[in-house]
């Protein structure tokens, strides 16, 4: 619905707006430590990526941190020291698949400092199917995708959806909470990434990953979402999202369920 409101704004802007690239003299506070940790309930390599931030004007190449000591533990006696692969990625050794209900602790020791984070892997909510929902806007019909699942009756389920389409480079990352529609079949669709110049077309395969995430991660990604596409003077005063990592690093550590389904656009 928020998106619909901004469509109204867009409509107005197109009547009179014009865009141009500008040069700004931005302050450079690069070199911040970034930790991105993901543990899923699937048997797959679980990665923790450690990099550093760069200045705005540099290319999107992020220096990898390869000399960290990364350990993962849970409240059932697991202790796993991760192995460095490349490009800042560390892989679990012992952990094959995360288990719902367990709390995982990530510890990163790098250059004399320790960073810790905890995340509880939520219960799995089955993704039973996908459905395309037509959206008509000013004569054009496009599609959103509806992930079909039934929210459990207990309150406090949080979800993240990652949507990709075969013809598209970008992706859509959206979060949902059962603060609306608790305990019922999902009714909220998710956008499909679509470039203005090269829109999604018939035959495209749409991939949706559904994750059940914990509350901290939900808050984190909601804050990330507010940062994207709503620049200064327009939306909120931007600030770094509230991270669940202690010790002053940016990023997050998430233990979540993961299910992937796909659908073809007709």
């Amino acid at each position, binding site marked *: *619905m928020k998106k*619909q*409101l901004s*469509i*109204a*704004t867009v409509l*107005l*802007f197109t009547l*009179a*707006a*014009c*865009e*141009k*690239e*500008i040069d*700004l003299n*931005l*302050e*450079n506070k*690069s*070199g*911040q430590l*970034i930790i*991105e940790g993901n543990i899923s309930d699937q048997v797959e390599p679980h990665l923790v990526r450690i990099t*550093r*931030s760069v200045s*705005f004007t540099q290319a*999107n190449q*992020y220096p990898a941190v390869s000399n960290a000591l990364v350990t993962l533990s849970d409240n059932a006696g697991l202790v796993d020291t991760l192995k460095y692969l490349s490009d800042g990625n560390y892989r679990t050794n012992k952990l094959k698949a995360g288990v719902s209900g367990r709390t995982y602790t990530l510890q990163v020791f790098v250059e004399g400092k320790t960073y810790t984070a905890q995340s509880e892997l939520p219960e799995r909510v089955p993704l039973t199917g996908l*459905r395309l929902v*037509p*959206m*008509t*806007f*000013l*004569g054009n019909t496009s599609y959103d995708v*509806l992930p079909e699942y039934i929210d459990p009756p207990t309150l406090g389920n949080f979800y993240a959806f990652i949507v990709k389409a075969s013809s598209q480079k970008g992706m859509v*990352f959206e979060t949902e909470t059962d*603060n*609306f*529609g*608790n305990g019922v079949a999902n009714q*909220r*669709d998710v956008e499909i990434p679509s470039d203005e110049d090269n829109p999604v077309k018939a035959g495209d395969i749409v991939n949706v990953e559904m994750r059940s995430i914990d509350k901290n991660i939900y808050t984190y990604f909601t*804050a*990330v979402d*507010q*940062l*994207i*596409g709503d*620049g*200064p*003077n*327009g939306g*909120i*005063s*931007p600030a770094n*999202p*509230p991270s669940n990592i202690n010790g002053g690093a940016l990023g*997050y550590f998430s233990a979540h369920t993961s299910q992937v389904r796909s659908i073809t656009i007709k």
Partner: protein
Amino acid sequence: MIKLVSCALVLFLFIPMLILGQNKHSLSGTVKDKQNGELLIGVSFRVEGNPRLGTISNEYGFYSLSLPEGNQIVYVSYVGYEVQKIKLNITNNLKLDIFLESSADNGATLSEVVVTSRKKDENLSTSQMGTEVLNIKTIEKLPVLFGEKDILKTIQLLPGIKSTGEGNSGFSVRGGAVDQNLILLDEAPVYNASHLLGFFSTFNSDALKDASIIKGNAPAQYGGRLSSVLDVKMKDGNNQNFAVNGGIGLISSRLSVEGPIQKDKSSFIISGRRTYADLFLGLTEQFQGSELFFYDLNMKANYQINKNNRIYLSGYFGRDILGLNNSFGTNWGNASGTLRWNSIISNKLFSNTSLIYSNYNYDISFQNEVVNVGLKSKIQDWNLKKDFSWYASDNHFIRFGVNTIHHTIAPANITGSLSSSFPRKSRTSLEKAIYINDDHKVTEKLTLSYGLRISAFTILGGDTYRIYEKGELKDSVQLTKGAWGKTYFNLEPRLSSNYRINQVSSFKVAYSRNTQNLHLLSNSNSGNPTDQWIGSSYTVKPEISDQISIGYSRNFDDNNYEINVEGYYKNMQNQIDYRNGADISFNVGEDIEADLLFGRGRAYGLEFIAKKKEGKLTGWVSYTLSKTERKIDGINNNQWYNSRLDRTHDLSVVATYLLSPKWTLSGLFVYSTGNAVTFPTGKYELNGQTIFHYDSRNADRMPAYNRLDLSATYEAKKRKKFQGSWTFGVYNAYGRQNAYIIDFQDNPKNEGTTRALQTSLFRWIPNITYNFKF
């Protein structure tokens, strides 16, 4: 409550002592426009040979003057009207209704006056500080966006009043937030004074008589907001003849009808405005099933019961409707009604009783194959006011009264096929105030205006209130319906003084405390129709501001030129912000108060305005140098940071030139420092997406803003009673690309890099409007 009453009683006990030992008679009555019977506000009365005597008519056109026995000559003057000289032999109390003749009807034209005080040298004689009065007739010829004349945009050209964004009707006064302005339309508060995402205001200038803005040092009869009072009065309607006027513009058309109900005694006015872009859009296939328009309807009638009693009924109704292809609809607007009873109790005492209803609500709906949801919210007031104007003696003018407002706030509630896990209940509260203010001419040179407002805000039952400290739930209070919860009492002293140094200059000092118990949670500059109002609660404390100002005024060339300089310092307590990542716009969490953060604010600045008030060329130059900061627990490491509308320099130049009796040219130029914003200081990658890194809040600046607007008005000759005029204009005449938004994003043209993309809104926007009256 007892404390409150006894405080007031003590105050009242002192007053009679001030006015003992008078041996004079009073002259009183009302002042009206001779042509249409419209009551005139702020008309000045001067007594020959006695500069200490004199008065000004109040907002209902009533005046009262104490005169010594014998022959007296009284001059009655008002800007745009002929001065009237009245010779009187005073032997006892006298009632006299005065009719002033507009100078425009005598051949001279009002367009020579742009914005001015009501009396030529009022800036020197009034103790009121930080006040500007706008004569609606006189702003007509200024250039405006889309040709929609708009008082909210004109006041932004005055010192200390800043626009919140390009073409926006939202404004900030002396570093205050948009919700800290008390906007009154015939005494009814307007909660959202904008249409169409803020580009238009709810004020249709055809229906308005007069507007004044007071920047923080308001007398005690006003209260409830920290930064300013914008008091807008609707026209009463012509009680002599029927009259029609209207206009056809690119965006909207307007029509007003006014006339007498009983000649000389009572009248009515109905004024409407509607945009019609959608009527054309509806013809295209793309827009089928879509709607996009707003309208306003102003109505007012007055009825004279007898010589001393008059009743007014005024109403406003306005809505914005936006619907897209039957799938998405929004509908929001204000409705207000004011029933007023003016009573002349004696030749020195005037009373006004008002019952005011005000409602702002929005209704959003969305539907597709899967879901249909609605979102509704409202804020509704019932307001009862009793106000007395007491012309106690020739050097004391006393205003006192009481005010009670019952607020009902229904926060956004979702309906339809999805339901909220945390349904919101309506919350009610009672805001009460008692006040007294004395305008005291101490000596010929020194005038004081001092007063006290005692305000009380009571939380009423019907909901459970949670108490949060730094975002953590500490306790909760369950208030049953009908129960009275916590009451916040506040004493709000007000003082302003004016010392007239000599014939042409004066010096002023003022102090004022204001409190505010309704707060708007907004996460954008310009404001969204869905922004939520909340009342003070167990977690949210009343906002308090203390402002000191010092000013100097000097007039030149027989009051033709005027210079005013004012400096101010303002301290604000219990300011509200919200934590990072809080979704306040749709209020999805358990309790929005858990996401609020509190702190302080401070603002200081220097304001300068020079006006040329008469002649072929009129206008003003206004400049503001200012600083506004906030310090909120939990933001920016608890350090002071620039508030978003902190702009160091603000300059406006406004000029109107009377080229010939038919042609008037006008132009305005504005320049301001860019808003304080937060730019990224680096970037990183998460989930394959580029994320920007931020440090200090609002430590950066948008590029400086500047713009020139021009307009020309052609007035055709009056034929019988019909008069038409054409206005041509261009907004942003040199096409400057002012930054509206700067977006930081991956560069689609150069993969693997990022760019800053600036969006500009309006360049070279032309307008043409045809106005007529008969």
